[in-house]
Structures are given as C-alpha cells and as structure tokens.
C-alpha cells in the first residue's frame, strides 16, 4: 500500500526551479534512498514533504491525507518526522526533554509518565539512555545526531525523513549508524533517506530515486540505478565532454 505519494511537485526560487515536476511513491514499510549531486534538489524535496517549504505546484499525500498547503506542525501531527542536514538539537533542554517534545506535541499527545516512557524508549533505541538527564548542548557531534534521531522516533511517525543523517561519521560510527537505521526499518517504519554514502545506500535501500538539477532522472532498484548511464553522467559529468 502506498504511504507517501509525491505527485508532479514543483518548487521555484526566483528563476531557479529547484524541484521540477517530481513524482514518485513510497510503499508502507519501504526504505528508499534519495540520491543526486549537490544542489540537485534533494533537501528541497524533503523540506517540501515536511512543510518547511511550500510547493508551487503538485500534491503530496501521506496515506491519503494531503500534506501540501499545511504547516510543519500540522504535517508533524499527521505522522511525518525528520532529521536535519545540519543537526538541530535543543541545547538548553535535557536529553529527555529534547526527545519528549514530539511525543507531547505530536499525533499521540502524550503527557507526564507516558511522554517520559516514550522518550526513554527512544533514547534507549539510539543508545543514549544513560545520559538522559544531561544537557543536550554538552553532546558530541555523533551523539547530537543520535539525539536528533531519537527525537524523530519519539514522534512515533509513519514516515521518517533522514537528511544525510550518516554524513560526517567515522567508519566505526557509520557501521553503528547503518545498523541503527536497519533496526528501524525492521520495526516497520517507512523511511526516505537523502544520502551520499553509497556503501550505506547499498546496504540499506533496495530502491532509490535519483535527482539532477531538480528533475527525477531515475527511480529503480539500487543496483540498476548505480550502473545507469544517466545517473553516472549526473554524478561525474557527461562522458562526451570529459
């Protein structure tokens, strides 16, 4: 069954068309990669889904509910959670409070003990439970990324958007990160992940969508896409010109 449906979505910034009539669907429980060179419109597309930007054309729906035209807080309550390309934590709040926020204000509106339980479970999932009461501002970069993921999980979302969540990790951390995302996927959560690290994409995503200059140039099985001449040309430049 289709969970997220992106239908002919367009976003313009002045004269630049950052996302140009992009369409694809993600089925429930699927984990899909979103690839493309820098500036190809991946993050813009994620921002359109989460409501951070409003689309100039087209329609985005989540399990039949229209997301386009709604505010980010409304979209969050419908069941979309995300992480940010540049990690965003709430530095003056404790880890527990950070993670509690979407549990309290999201679809389920937990409060009190229930909200704490959800937060604790999410912190455990990413391996931060021991530090629950420390301040988020004191965390290292990798732990901030973990915290951000825990916050997204505490929303108990239907769809999780990961915007280069694995970027900037060292090889050991990368291995842990991939295992973590795999465990989320196994728990049945639907994931759309923007990612540059091909090793991780191969390991996690059976299917990818590839963007270049705002357009969708491929939407196919990962192994096929990575040998697709169009995709290779987009990443490396046209063969004839080289």
């Amino acid at each position, binding site marked *: 069954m289709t969970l997220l449906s992106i239908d002919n979505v367009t976003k313009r910034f002045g004269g630049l068309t950052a996302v140009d009539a992009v369409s694809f669907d993600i089925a429930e429980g699927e984990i899909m990669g979103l690839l493309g060179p820098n500036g190809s419109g991946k993050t813009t597309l994620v921002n359109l889904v989460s409501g951070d930007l409003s689309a100039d054309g087209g329609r985005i729906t989540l399990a039949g509910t229209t997301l386009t035209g709604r505010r980010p*807080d409304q979209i969050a309550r419908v069941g979309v959670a995300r992480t940010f390309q540049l990690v965003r934590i709430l530095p*003056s709040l404790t880890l527990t409070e950070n993670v509690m*926020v979407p549990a309290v204000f999201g679809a389920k509106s937990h409060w009190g003990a229930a909200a704490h339980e959800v937060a604790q479970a999410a912190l455990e999932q990413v391996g931060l439970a021991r530090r629950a009461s420390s301040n988020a501002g004191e965390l290292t970069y990798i732990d901030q990324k973990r915290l951000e993921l825990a916050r997204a999980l505490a929303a108990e979302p239907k769809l999780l958007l990961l915007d280069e969540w694995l970027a900037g990790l060292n090889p050991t951390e990368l291995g842990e990160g991939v295992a973590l995302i795999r465990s989320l996927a196994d728990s049945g959560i639907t994931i759309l992940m923007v990612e540059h690290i091909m090793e991780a994409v191969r390991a996690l995503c059976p299917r990818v969508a590839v963007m270049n200059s705002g357009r969708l140039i491929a939407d196919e099985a990962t192994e096929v896409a990575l040998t697709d001449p169009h995709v290779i040309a987009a990443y490396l430049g046209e063969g004839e010109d080289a």
Partner: protein
Amino acid sequence: MKLILPVLALALLAAAPFALSDYGLGLLIGAVTYTTLASSWALFSGHTGYISLATVAFYGTGAYTVAVLNEALPYPLVLLAAALVGATMALVVGLSTLRLAGVYFVIFTFGLAELVRQLITWYEVNVTGTLGRYIFLDVTARGIYWQMLALGAVTIGLTALIHRSRLGLALRVIGDDEVVAAHSGIPLARTKLVAFVLSATILTLAGAIASPRWVYVEPAIVFNPTVSFLTVIMALLGGANRLWGPALGAVPLFLAFEWLSVKLPDTYPIFLGFLFIGVVFALPDGVLAGIERLRQRREGAG
C-alpha cells in the same frame, strides 16, 4: 511543602502596611509593581527569548483606560475594561508581529510604545481638545498595594503553572529553535500568541491598578520608555527563565534606583546606563544561573 514559604511571605507582605510609614509603603508599592511587571514580562519573553520593549505600551494603556473611564464606570468594571483593552491590543499586535524574529521584534515593540503614545496624544489634542486627565478614585495607597500584591502573586503562581504545562515546554522549545518546534508539532503562532496576550493583559492591569497614584495623567508621563527598559533589565538580572528570577532582580534594582534618584538626582541616569551594560556583560543568564555555575565550579574543584 514548597508552597509554605511563598504563602508565609505573601501573608507577611500583606500585613506590612500596618507597620510602615507612608514613605515605606510607597517604596513597597514600587517594588511590588516592578516585580509584577518583570514577572509578567518574563511570562512571555523569559523562555521564548523574544525581548519585548512594549511593556510601557500596555502599562500606560492600563493607566489611560482608568483615566478615561474612572468617572463613568464602577471601579471593578474599569479594571475589567482595562484587561480587555490590553488583551485585544496584544492580540492584534501579536498576530501582526510574532512572525518577526530577533532584533526586528525588539525594534517593533519599542516603536509600538511610541506609536500608542503619539496616537493618544493626537486623539486628545484633536478630538477631545485636552491633553491631561485627572483620576479621582477613592482608592487608598494600601488599597493599591494590596491589589498589586494580589496581581503579583497571581502572576508568579500562573508562571509556576505554565512552567509545568505543555505551554511552558512549548515556549522553551520555541526559545531554543523554532524550526524544531514546528516540526515537532508545536503550532508556533498560537503558542506565542497565548503567552503574549497573557503577559500583556497582566501588564495592562498593573498600569490600571497603579494609575490612581498619579492623580494627573498625560501620555508623556504614563508612556515613559524607561519603564520598559527597567522591566527588561530587572528580569534579566534575576534570570528571566526562572520562576523567582524577575522578583529577585526587581526588588533590589528598584530600591537601588530609588536611593540613587534621591541622592544623585542629576547623575542617576548614568548609573542606570552602567548597570544595563554590567548586567548584559557579567550576568547574561541572570544572578540565579550565575550562582548555580559558581556552585558547580566549586563542587568540580572540591
């Protein structure tokens, strides 16, 4: 258990007028008024970090409402009218400005106080043909004090409730990062508006309650921008995001300014300036946070 100390202090403060001279009572009224102003200012600005310089716009509006209505309506209705005027004004202002962030919001709120003052001046001169108004109310200094004390207690009580509520958490998240707040399901506009209107209504009521002390009222007197600056600096000195922070900043600062303005009537604004700079440099998070840091450092060393 935690309630015993505040309730005891409140009873003591309520009984204080019987033991004080008129001058002493005047000081106490001032201290309680500024505690109320700083606490209600912090109700919105403390956690969100939206620094408002519109305090006197609401405070002055409260005083002016009393000046206009004091002969037409019974006193309780005058207060109710002031609260309604303040809430309506805050609603309109909030809807149009809470999208502004950082320095733009600060400048707008400062402009708002000036705008209200000029509008009322224009109206009084051109429509009613008089600039000043008299407030003849049969409210004693003690009456004013008790009302202000009650308003201050309600403000701090309300702040305590908000700190423990969803609204309090939402305001803190907004103060840290509005993008994260929105993506976590917090309706930004509504949350900020609720806190802003609550805070502004209390500010307006404080102006209404304090107004009989003036007897004679005109825009230049009741819309004095120093009130806005003092409120901000008092709240920041104590710690704007703590329950007792604003009170802790307001009482000593008010007493210090009273003392200075008596001893050094000409040069006292200079000290005001130094103090502003000092607070921002030395204690950006307030005295309470400073003490906590010191204690942590000592524990770390020992």
